[in-house]
């Protein structure tokens, strides 16, 4: 896909402070419009997955309810959010804050910029941890199964402000033949599934599972892979021999069986699947980093660093890792695509998340399993979303690979 980035490097304007290697690479990567679109898509899905409790919910933001002592305003949606939801918001806000601060501080002069950025990041993270722990202690989410729509219909409630998509992921329309397998309409933008639930709401909620599993499992896999791969690549010898055997062994474990086993022991949870995908998925990174390290180890500057008597860990982390890591990060982008695919396959086979939590693979299975009747309008959205997110990760990965290619980075 060289054509995606086969554009001349534009020299950075001399007025701006010199950009770092990564900034350059990312800027170069984002140049083609196609990559821009798909990067934006990933960002959008990420954002949706972070904020979906506010976007799609059957509970209104605010509503006036008639109680024994007159009308009372309630905020069911916020009361219903779990601590984990709030923590996700805080984490998202911190990350977005750091990114924005990073961009805003670009104009600051080089030496001060670094400490400023670190300071801002520290403050934001500290505030996030503080806020998060306070929330974890103070917030108590209320179990709320009230059907607010019925309440409004019966005149017991009024002035409801609903979320943009006023359906929860598990919320069924009152059971009737007309409510299920509904085609897209004004009421349900993507129709309803065979239990009478809003497909769009489920789609959005499912993005949470996909992105969560993708990012967390790859983070685990990446850190494990980096540690083992770096050890193998740097020390070589017996470390390398044993490490490679370990890699081969882990590759031989049937993931599918492992997940079934763990689900049977510990019960179903997203976390479990994340951990298993992480624990079995690190081998690729380890192999990659090992090869990189074996290559880099021969290079002159490492020999030079060793000649100056620099301690080992410093050579590894300051000199070798940053150089070996770049290609690994590229493969992490493909790894994300792979993790999302595996998660959806597991859900398709029926060993994914706990129902009624939606996931794209599970929705596909419900719609397209040959043992049931095929409803294309139910199978299309999750498949398309899955396809697009995998495509996006792959395209961004390709573009990133081209961008960090030393031959093309001028």
């Amino acid at each position: 896909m060289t054509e995606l980035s086969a554009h001349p490097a534009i020299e950075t304007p001399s007025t701006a402070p010199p950009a770092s290697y990564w900034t350059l690479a990312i800027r170069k990567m984002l140049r083609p419009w196609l990559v821009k679109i798909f990067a934006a898509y990933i960002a959008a899905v990420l954002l949706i997955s972070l904020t979906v409790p506010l976007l799609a919910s059957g509970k209104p933001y605010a509503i006036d309810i008639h109680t024994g002592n007159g009308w009372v305003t309630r905020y069911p949606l916020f009361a219903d959010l779990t601590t984990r939801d709030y923590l996700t918001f805080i984490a998202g806000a911190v990350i977005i804050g750091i990114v924005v601060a990073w961009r805003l501080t670009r104009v600051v002069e080089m030496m001060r910029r670094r400490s400023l950025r670190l300071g801002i990041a520290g403050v934001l993270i500290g505030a996030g941890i503080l806020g998060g722990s306070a929330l974890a202690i103070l917030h108590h989410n209320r179990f709320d199964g009230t059907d607010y729509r019925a309440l409004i219909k019966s005149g017991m409630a009024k002035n409801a402000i609903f979320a943009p998509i006023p359906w929860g992921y598990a919320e069924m329309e009152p059971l009737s033949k007309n409510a299920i397998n509904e085609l897209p309409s004004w009421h349900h933008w993507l129709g309803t599934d065979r239990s009478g639930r809003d497909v769009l709401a489920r789609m959005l909620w499912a993005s949470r599972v996909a992105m969560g599993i993708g990012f967390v499992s790859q983070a685990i896999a990446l850190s494990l892979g980096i540690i083992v791969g770096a050890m193998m690549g740097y020390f070589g010898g017996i470390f390398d021999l044993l490490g490679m055997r370990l890699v081969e062994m882990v590759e031989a474990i049937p993931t599918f069986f492992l997940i079934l086993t763990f689900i049977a022991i510990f019960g179903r949870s997203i976390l479990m699947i994340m951990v298993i995908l992480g624990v079995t998925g690190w081998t690729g990174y380890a192999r990659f980093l090992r090869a990189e390290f074996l290559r880099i180890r021969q290079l002159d500057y490492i020999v030079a660093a060793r000649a100056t008597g620099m301690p080992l860990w410093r050579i590894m982390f300051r000199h070798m890792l940053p150089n070996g890591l770049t290609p690994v990060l590229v493969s992490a982008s493909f790894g994300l695509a792979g993790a999302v695919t595996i998660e959806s396959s597991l859900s398709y086979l029926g060993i994914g998340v706990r129902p009624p939590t939606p996931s794209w693979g599970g929705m596909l299975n419900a719609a397209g399993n040959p043992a049931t009747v095929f409803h294309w309008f139910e199978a299309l959205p999750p498949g398309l979303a899955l396809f697009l997110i995998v495509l996006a990760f792959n395209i961004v990965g390709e573009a990133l690979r081209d961008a960090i290619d030393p031959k093309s980075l001028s």
Partner: protein
Amino acid sequence: MGNRFTVKDFIFLCIFIVIAVMLGFTLGSFNYLTHQVAGLRSDLQTMQAQQTSELYALKTLQRSGVRTTNHTGINDSSKVASDIRETLPDGSRYVMFPNPPLPPYNPYTKPNFAYGDWLVESLSSEPNRIMPYVPQSESAASIQASVLESLLVRNPLTLKYDPWLARSYTVSKDGLKITFVVRRRARFSNGQPVTAQDVVFSYDTMMNPEVNCAPIRSYYTDIKSCRARSAWTVVFTFKRPYFKALGIAGGLAIIPKSVYGFQHMSEFNKHGKLLVGSGPYVLKRWTAGQAIVLSRNPRYWGPRPIFDRLVYRFITNPQASLQSLLAGQIDADGLEPSQWLKYHNKKSFLAKFTTYKYLSAASGYNFICWNLRKPWFQDRRTRVALAMLVNEPAMIKTFMHGLAVQNTGPFNPVSPQNNPHVKPIPYDPAMAQQLLKKAGWKRDADGLLERGKTQFRFGLTIPSQFPLGKRIAEYIKQQFAMAGIDMQINPLDFTTLLQKINHRHFDAVMLGWSGSIENDPYQIWYSGSYKNDGSNAGDFDDPLADRLILEGRRTLNVRKRMHIWHQLQAEIYRQQPYLFLFTSYSLIAINKRIKNTQPYPVTGISPGDWFVPLALQKYR
């Protein structure tokens, strides 16, 4: 460099393609050959088995000087004697049928009746083995039904047991002793006559601990002995009076000693495809992954079988079997509710297929079993309230497209056990709230129901490979949530789920029991069945129910027994130890070329009655 596509490149490409095609063909022929070889080998194996058995039979026949005879059709021979059902002076019941009974919907007298043609049906899974008695799947059972026969047969209309391989039977007054007289005409497919020795042998084989048939053996634990009194008479003695005694003894599949009489009975387990009986069909071939073919037993002792062959094809998913049905590759198929909905009133479909929708006694029912030892479910009012929160009629209408019937107890709705006067608990959330309040449940600050320190929060375990169950659970979860009950859904793979049930590690579990014409409620509902991994997993312990169960099992009089079962059902439904869900309709489509297909009211369709008029016959 000039990159034009030259003639040489083209030739290269052609060679490439030719090689590829040749490779494909090689692979194809490899596959084809292995396939054919496998088929031949399977034929050979079955043939060998048949031949050895026949050789053996011939030898013994020569020794005993009996001449093998081909049967003559009896349906056309005029009846010499008439059937007898009478009570003897000593109070025992005597039943004698001089000829095997004809099916109630008699095909032989129908217009256009003709022998011949094949009947092709689908099986949803390939059986692992089709040995008699050995643990079997439903698919193996339907094949065995055409090859193996038993002493008695249940009349599908009257539901009474009629003599089949037995010419007559006598049940002693206390019900402990059943005497069968075997028909002298009856022959196994190898020509060997069916004797009392074979019946005893069959019983002994099944009771032999070396033979892997524990599940079936368990039914026969109530039998004290099985003895041959003479060459044609055999007596079963029971330990205690049991209403199912006649069905158990008369339902034993009779296998020929001449074939299965191994020196070491452990050899029995090693075979997979040795299936020889006295039935109208014999196993012709079994092609792995494809089909099992039965062919007409040429020396069948009874009425001549109608079809020349019965073919059972393994088609694993409903969509594929519908495809095959539409393409005419199979003659009859069960439909999914959604398929039924789509096709049952489509003219083009109805022009080719006859459709039936009926409740069969064999269909089971689904339920949610509450673990009554857990704090949430100990109170009857709570359980009733939970049932009131679920709108079952709407669920049946929506999820099952109306093709199911709500259960009002553990018995099949069409079975005589079922008490038609038990009314289903209505969907009434308001009433449910009141009941919950009465039971002491109050809303706490968290929005959950609470009694004392117990919050109403439990897990429902469902089998993960059961999509409908998931939908039902999701619906129920929502309904409970509205009442302030938090139910978590835990899908587990079936094996783990069974383990959890065995160890009683569950709050509530969704499962199904399969049905039969008359169930013995002991295993599921008797309080003693909680221990020892019995099936009373929820620990239902009701003195009245226990009394009724024990009494019912003893009662041999059908009407009295049914009365007891009706009472039992009312009591169980009142107690609501299960949230009873529904029994689905059987939805069948049969190719129009097959005639006489109407189902019996309780037992459903009976392929033994079917025939194809000469003009419509397809296979010869």
